[in-house]
């Protein structure tokens, strides 16, 4: 996917000026947060489960090679195929080859962020396949030719009135006068359109929330059941998943599932949790003839053993963005690549480079709310700070900022000089600001005073006043 991350500031301004988006974000900020809080309150062992989930993933990451090979063995034993993809290009090619191998015409898809990451839809369409997203949110943004703005609610930036307009424009087979004001009318129409697509589909592509090493099973969680239809009805089921989705056992997946939906939507469990192991066996009533898993690296193995390894615990629940005040202000598209919010602030520079993704770890107040709610206890602000340090060390930080830091650092490590300089500066500012107690404009502080007044200092510093009264040192 093309990135606009280097234009984060412009993207943010556009987002802030978009009234529909702001209206949608206002709703989001309340709903997800309240539901997660209720789910957490209803489960006394929630925080203990978070520890357990963290430990499971840490263990897995320490032995990732072992568990991936075990997974491959088990998939193969069940009659499926595992394809190792180093990067997006290899993954796309593997999927296209599988589709061509069965002379597919139509491909249906369950929701997958890996698909976004490797820009699969465009590649499949270019190769001549019809591609249909079946998750309602994904279907909406496919019609709108947009990308997801949230990892579990891809069309959260779209109001239902906009969806109705899109449906009228695309579903020309229906009566023009039909009512489309209620969500259930929109859902019924999407269901009617998609039902035939499932039946016509040759290849069903899904992501995976977990890959289970002991059984060679892939797991997806959905609320619409679209994933089940996508992977059960066509001849071929292709799972696209990244390396770090593997866990050792069914028990491990079950443990992490207990924190996943609660953190994401506040549900105890998603409506559907589907386990797939291999293709249809002779006695099975249904299922695909072929079962393939594309195992994507695309930068993940490079994070192992670094200060960013903890990020590979991420289960993509979206709690970090639901609770992020920056995401809440600008929404997902401003982040400019696949993963928005705090997870994106770490994943984006990890996958496309700090030179491209450097804005994102900077665009945080380090309020810490993301780390507070992360079910996998990922220290997100700490990793963003690592990226800031990397930027600084590589000389990528803006020159004006470097100059300011150098000057401040120079003065702050010389207390006498600091005292003298601050005495003069605060004396001056104090005199200028005394009449009103604040400044509406101030040279060099335009970033502040464009939006708010700048409180004036008292005039003399604490240190000088303390000396004047003979305070103890």
């Amino acid at each position, binding site marked *: 996917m093309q990135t606009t991350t280097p234009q984060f500031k412009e993207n943010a301004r556009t987002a802030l000026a978009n009234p529909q988006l702001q209206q949608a974000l206002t709703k989001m900020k309340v709903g997800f947060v309240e539901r997660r809080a209720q789910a957490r309150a209803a489960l006394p062992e929630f925080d203990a489960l978070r520890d357990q989930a963290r430990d499971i993933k840490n263990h897995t990451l320490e032995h990732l090679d072992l568990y991936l090979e075990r997974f491959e063995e088990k998939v193969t034993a069940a009659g499926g195929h595992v394809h190792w993809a180093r990067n997006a290009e290899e993954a796309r090619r593997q999927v296209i080859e599988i589709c061509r191998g069965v002379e597919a015409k139509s491909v249906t898809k369950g929701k997958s962020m890996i698909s976004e990451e490797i820009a699969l839809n465009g590649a499949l369409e270019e190769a001549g396949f019809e591609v249909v997203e079946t998750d309602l949110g994904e279907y909406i943004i496919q019609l709108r030719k947009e990308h997801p703005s949230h990892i579990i609610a891809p069309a959260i930036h779209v109001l239902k009135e906009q969806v109705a307009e899109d449906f009228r424009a695309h579903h020309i087979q229906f009566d023009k006068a039909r009512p489309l004001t209620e969500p259930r009318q929109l859902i019924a129409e999407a269901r009617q359109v998609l039902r035939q697509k499932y039946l016509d589909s040759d290849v069903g592509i899904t992501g995976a929330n977990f890959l289970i090493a002991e059984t060679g099973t892939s797991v997806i969680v959905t609320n619409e059941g679209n994933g089940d239809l996508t992977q059960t009805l066509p001849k071929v089921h292709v799972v696209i998943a990244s390396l770090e989705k593997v866990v050792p056992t069914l028990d491990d997946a079950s443990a992490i599932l207990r924190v996943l939906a609660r953190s994401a939507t506040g549900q105890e469990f998603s409506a559907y949790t589907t386990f797939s192991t291999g293709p249809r066996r002779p006695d099975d009533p249904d299922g695909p003839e072929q079962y393939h898993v594309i195992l994507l690296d695309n930068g993940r193995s490079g994070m192992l053993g670094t200060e960013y390894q903890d990020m590979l615990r991420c289960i993509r629940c979206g709690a970090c963005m639901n609770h992020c005040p920056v995401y809440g202000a600008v929404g997902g598209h401003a982040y400019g690549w696949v993963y928005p919010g705090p997870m994106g602030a770490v994943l984006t520079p990890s996958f496309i480079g700090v030179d491209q993704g450097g804005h994102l770890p900077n*665009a945080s107040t380090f309020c810490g709310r993301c780390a507070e709610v992360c079910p996998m206890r990922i220290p997100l602000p700490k990793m963003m700070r690592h990226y800031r340090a990397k930027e600084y060390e590589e000389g990528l930080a803006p020159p004006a900022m470097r100059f300011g830091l150098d000057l401040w650092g120079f003065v702050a490590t010389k207390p006498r000089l600091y005292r003298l300089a601050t005495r003069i500066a605060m004396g001056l500012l104090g005199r200028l600001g005394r009449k009103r*107690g604040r*400044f509406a404009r101030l040279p060099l502080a335009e970033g502040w005073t464009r939006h708010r007044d700048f409180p004036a200092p008292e005039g003399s510093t604490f240190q000088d006043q303390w000396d004047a009264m003979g305070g103890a040192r």
Partner: protein
Amino acid sequence: MTDPSSSFSHADGAPDTSDAAPTVGLFVTCLVDLFRPRIGFAAVKLLEAAGCRVVAPRAQTCCGQPAYNSGDNGHSRRIAAQVIDAFEGVDYLVAPSGSCAGMIRAHYPELFEDDPAMHLRASALASRSYELVSFLTDVRDMPLAAIEARFDGAVTYHDSCSGLRELEIKQQPRRLLSAVEGVRLSELPSAEICCGFGGAFCVKYPDVSNKMVEEKAADIVATGADALLAGDLGCLMNMAGKLKRQGAPTRVYHVAEVLAGMADGPGIGEADIGEAEEDAAPAPADT
């Protein structure tokens, strides 16, 4: 200052249980030192009321957080080393800021992970460093009767992020405020959501920061409180600056000023004298 050996008895961070008054080194913080010294004096008054002897080590400037959060670990280490030197002889370091105290408690040891000798010293200082209000309640167990203050009106309280999440400061200021005569607490529903200050963030991403502080200011005004309180001057200057720009009548104080009975003067962003009427309108340019 006390005998340096006395600091070893508290190196584990355990509360001082001896009868002798502990020596508290006041880490004034750069913002309080430069912009609002009266918060520092309020802190001194409260610490003395809690039975402490207060010193203000001379060689302090800043905690280094601006450099640390900008990825400049070199300057961060040099500034941290200066603070560690300056406060080595005191029983406790106390700062009227959760952000600076969090920097010292949570991040100083991280800064010296590759330097065992400094790591030891940083960890020792970290374990006896506290934010003011949590020190008064959690370490000194300050009796509510020792708070002699009056503030007439409804106040609302913003929980600054570092204090809340790095130091678990939530009930402490509310407990002490309950001892202030005349005050009513009207809770802010978004008390735990960042105000958009974030140090350099507010000038690096001014438009995003503005959106955050705009929502915060609207929430503050909606509580109907006469005054906004918090424990960090950075956040307070941000919120006060927005409230003033909007012409909101809400006054803004550091919680220490109210607890010390020193909130009878101008609030943050207000002039010294007789400005009540002018405050109702957005200020024109001063420069």
